[in-house]
């Protein structure tokens, strides 16, 4: 089945007021294009979930789309803080954001449980730490075999997972290489999956290299072709991280006025991703384009 559609169609069909969503990726493959479309559609009261909420989640918070954040590490990776998040969580804040906090493995374990169809996942963690004290969802269980006490976290089924990949076919069989983050676990945990791809390829291309498929099309509802949809994040083999942007973001996002002005210009002020890309400095994308690093092929014959 051909599941291809525009980003606008995929988001309006899947993300509603009050939805729980994951725009996944671990520094790699973070689909800023999807976040910006959600902001443009004016969706409210989202529960935004990700191990590492970063700039695009902060933009969703600043735009007023998020009611609650479920996370394990929130920052501008390698640079600094998320300023909308800080403004909404520190002592002076009047409109406090609801936070539900884990460690990386704790939140990942919630996706593992959901992706395995189990009610919870055990982990050997949190002894002596305050994380379990402030998060009542973290409980303990006594192992029926060894009698050891282990921490547990409940399964988490997000309404929508948005997964960016290097290439997919029109049915949503999605191939990823480089850092895999928690994309697979998140996709299997979610009720609905949107696959966004740098390239749409014929199914034969996927079938020739089946080990590289991370997300199978049977769990995918929409396929969006959106090259450069991850800028300023990176896509291995396609383009590098725009680190200058991450550094500049520290100043842009520190003051509400400059933050709002940026959203007006680069998110509300454009129709779609093409419009955003057209606003970037001339030549920037060429500078970021990855150098070729092709691996030796393998033989799948029998």
């Amino acid at each position, binding site marked *: 089945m051909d599941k291809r559609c525009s980003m606008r169609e995929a988001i309006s069909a899947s993300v509603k007021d009050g939805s729980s969503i994951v725009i996944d990726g*671990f*520094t*790699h493959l973070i689909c800023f294009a999807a976040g910006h479309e959600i902001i443009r559609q004016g969706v409210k009261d989202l529960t935004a979930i990700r*191990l*590492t909420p970063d700039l695009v989640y902060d933009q969703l918070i600043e735009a007023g789309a998020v009611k609650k954040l479920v*996370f*394990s*590490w*929130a*920052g501008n*990776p*390698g640079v600094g*803080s998320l300023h909308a*998040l*800080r403004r909404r*969580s*520190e*002592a002076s804040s009047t409109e406090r954001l609801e936070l539900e*906090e*884990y*460690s*990386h*493995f*704790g939140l*990942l374990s919630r996706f*593992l449980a959901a992706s395995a169809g189990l009610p919870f996942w055990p*982990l*050997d*963690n*949190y*002894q*002596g*730490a*305050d*994380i379990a004290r*402030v998060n009542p969802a973290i409980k303990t269980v006594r192992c029926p075999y060894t009698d*050891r*006490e282990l921490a547990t976290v409940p399964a988490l089924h997000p309404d929508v997972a948005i997964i960016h990949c290097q290439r997919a076919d029109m049915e949503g069989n999605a191939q990823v*290489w*480089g*850092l*895999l*983050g*928690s*994309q*697979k*676990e998140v996709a299997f945990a979610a009720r609905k999956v949107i696959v966004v791809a740098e390239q749409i390829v014929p199914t034969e291309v996927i079938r020739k290299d089946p080990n590289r498929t991370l997300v199978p099309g049977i769990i995918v509802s929409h396929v969006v072709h959106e090259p450069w949809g991850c800028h300023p994040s*990176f896509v*291995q083999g396609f383009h*590098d*991280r725009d*680190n200058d942007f*991450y550094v500049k973001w520290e100043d842009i996002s520190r003051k509400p006025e400059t933050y709002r002005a940026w959203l007006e210009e680069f998110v509300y002020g454009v129709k779609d991703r093409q419009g955003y890309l057209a606003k970037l400095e001339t030549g920037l994308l060429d500078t970021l384009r*990855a150098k070729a*690093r092709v691996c030796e092929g393998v033989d799948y014959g029998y």
Partner: protein
Amino acid sequence: MGTESVSTASERMAWRAAQELHDGDVVFVGIGLPNLACNLARATHAPGLFMIYESGAVGAIPERLPVSIGDPSLVTDSLAVVGQADIFQCLLQRGLIEVGFLGGAQVDRWGNINTTVIGDYANPKVRLPGSGGACEIAVHARRLLIVMRMGKRTFVEKCDFITSPGHRMNGKTRAELGLPGGGPTRIITDLGVLDFDATGEAVLSEVYPGVTSDQVRAACGWPLRVADSVRTTGEPDTSVLSLLRERLDPQRLYL
């Protein structure tokens, strides 16, 4: 650039942390100074250092200094790239990590670390990034190295929040709580090095040249115990300094 022969605080810390790494150690690398320390160790006395990043890169040998824990240069030429579930379950929780590295906003005398909030959790003065993988690294690494600059605001009597457990948490020991890893072995600071005694308390054991024990005690937020004999730590020589400045961090991202 690279001509000044006196080392900076960051250079000393990176160099001293590198001394803790042995050839062949499997190390869970954090970004910033720990990353630099690992690259320095690999370029000098520990060419076989096995570097694992929580982003999924296993046996990475990045050709440029990664700007974040998930830099594409960690993927190129790695031995394996795996999902984060594998990193945390099969490598860390399985007990395969010898050395973990952590820093934070606060550390206390038992090596507990706070990277979550300053102030009350529900009503924080400063909201920090949170644990990430730090809590599980502190739980599972066989040896944990803490790298932090000293000051009364960072070396505190009691952490506002224990993100990553050290040796004693609210009076309970690691053994009593069933923590599998060894806990913190050293705190490497810009003034000197703290070890931990048999009770799990941090004790000043080394100072850099020109630093006195009293200076270190004055920079600590609790009455810091001092070892019977405090040794003077060496300093990075000019070859190490030029390696750090010219090859390992030419853009001075962390130095």
